[in-house]
């Protein structure tokens, strides 16, 4: 599993979802969070965290957001030399195969369907960490 001190960036256009995801992650032992309301602000948060010396180690992002969607944010992260290795989990209510395939092709680490089940979230994060740790 990701170390408890992993800095996690939560990106969602609903501040309420930030609280819900944080609640689940806090119950898993995590305590370092940043939040952003869309992909553009999320990318700025990645840069700010890197500059502050506490880089983000995991991104959880919604798919449908204004300005820059979660999918566009994923693409921007994977094209960035500085951030391309950060595990990126997409949270979405959209489970259509075409969307899932697009996200996989763009390099998503895991794909979680809303409503977020804390047990499924934990299992997916463990699986992502296992893949990262054996790279």
């Amino acid at each position, binding site marked *: 599993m990701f170390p408890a001190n992993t800095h996690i960036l939560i990106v969602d256009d*609903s501040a*309420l979802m930030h609280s819900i995801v944080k609640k689940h992650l806090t119950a898993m032992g995590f305590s370092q969070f940043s939040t952003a309301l869309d992909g553009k602000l999320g990318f700025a948060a990645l840069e700010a965290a890197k500059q502050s010396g506490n880089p983000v180690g995991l991104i959880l992002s919604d798919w*449908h957001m204004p300005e820059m969607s979660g999918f566009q944010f994923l693409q921007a992260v994977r094209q960035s030399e500085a951030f391309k290795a950060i595990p990126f989990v997409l949270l979405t209510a*959209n489970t259509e195969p075409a969307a899932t395939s697009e996200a996989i092709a763009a390099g998503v680490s895991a794909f979680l369907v809303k*409503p977020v*089940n804390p047990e499924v979230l934990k299992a997916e994060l463990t699986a992502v960490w296992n893949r990262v740790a054996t790279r």
Partner: protein
Amino acid sequence: MQLDANFFKPFVDGAMKTFEISCKLKALPQKPFLKGSQPQPEFAIAGVIGLTSPKFNGNITLCFPAPVFLAAMSSMLGEDFKEITDDLQDGVAELLNIIYGQAKVVLNQQGHAVEKAIPSVIRGSQIRTTAVSSTPVMVLPFKTDAGEFHIEICSE
């Protein structure tokens, strides 16, 4: 398009699953009825989402009396909420978005080609939802330990 059980079921299933997982609340579907044929509770908050496909144009409304919404949000966020605040009102859009997303997948498997949409929130005391067209509005009631909430399906 005539609304039938195959069209409603994905919304019923989506609501039950969403409430169970997100809110830890059992949402038991009750017998659907046509709007106006039975009294409805006083709603304090509602989320509305347009549903557009080659076969159907209309909207889906998720309506809550205040105590039911507050119970759902309290359970979702692990805090005891006493009133519907600006921060909390996002919750109805989020719940509707999740229910809609789940229903959309099933409806598209049935060939509806439903497009993605963004929900709007209506908040106030004693909200009354009224259909703009003369088409009957189907009400899908759900019973929870905190009271009833309704999903209304209106076609243009």
